[in-house]
């Protein structure tokens, strides 16, 4: 059936259009928020570190940009012993999860 191939071959312009749309959505987001992620990282870390000791390397911040809503994802890993220490200190007993996920 190889003689049918020229008719079935996908038009290259539509491939180009799709590749560009995906790439530019990503690049526009990266450009507009190039400063935002480091700033958020610093400030969120400072706020959390006031109450629980956190490891600077165990923090992940991601921004997913959608058409209607964007999702800000912050993952902070809190060591179990630190968590326990904080709980005892405040004399409360909420069993917090290992990682907190916040969506805005």
């Amino acid at each position: 059936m190889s003689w049918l191939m020229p008719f079935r071959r996908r038009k290259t312009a539509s491939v180009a259009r799709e590749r560009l749309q995906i790439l530019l959505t990503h690049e526009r987001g990266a450009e507009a928020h190039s400063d935002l992620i480091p700033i958020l990282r610093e400030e969120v870390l400072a706020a959390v570190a006031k109450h629980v000791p956190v490891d600077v390397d165990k923090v992940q911040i991601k921004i997913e940009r959608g058409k209607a809503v964007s999702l800000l994802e912050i993952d902070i890993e809190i060591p179990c012993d630190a968590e326990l220490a904080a709980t005892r200190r405040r004399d409360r007993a909420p069993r917090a999860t290992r990682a907190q996920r916040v969506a805005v």
Partner: protein
Amino acid sequence: MAQVVVVTSGKGGVGKTTTTAALGASLAQSGQRVAVVDFDVGLRNLDLVMGAERRVVYDLIYVSQGTVKLSQALIRDKRLETLFLLAASQTRDKDALTDDGVAKVMRELRESFDWIICDSPAGIERGATLAMRHADVAVVVTNPEVSSVRDSDRIVGLLDSKTDKAARGERIEKHLLLTRYDPVRAGRGDMLNVDDVIDILSLPLLGIIPESEEVLRASNLGSPVPISSPKSGPARAYSDAARRLMGEDVPMVFPTDRNGLFSKIFGRRAA
């Protein structure tokens, strides 16, 4: 009031200099007073494309440093008396062009011209940002090709952040000029078409310049295409684009496969 236009693209070789010369010539043919300014220090070519390469004595850097008066550096076109060229320096260091120096030249040019068209160097470095700094209007020259479209998108980001207008919180007027457009290949689905590029870049369309041998002929001759071949496809397209810049409502002409069946059969083979 004078309008400062920057012709920019990010990517090199898409037709910025050709476009600067052609828009300048078209505007001057309508009686407007036009200065075309080459910002490509060290790699100037606007003088060559305009056919004035042997008449350059002083350049943009001389004027920006106050060594000579603007009137001494401006070269009047031999064919159109309201068209002037301010060349870039070919030998001086790029850093000789300062922010204040350029601002001074732009202020003076605004006093004596209707249109100041700045031919930007390729890239996103200082030369490109200096060329766009004082612009009221940007013409983003784009080929229907992935790398050109991507670089244009990057330039749009710079226009919205690095221009004086953006710094004042105003929006710079941006237009898309699609060059080297081949309707046969676009129709066949082997080249991004006009709508694809408009969709991706979200810029209003200023014009579509068809791929044409007349463009190379014009630069061979050192005569902008609206002068060398005024009836040709690219000359008409540039002239329409110039009228749109002047605020006229000119219907968009989409380049078509003019020879019909003939080029359908033979054009494909040649392409």
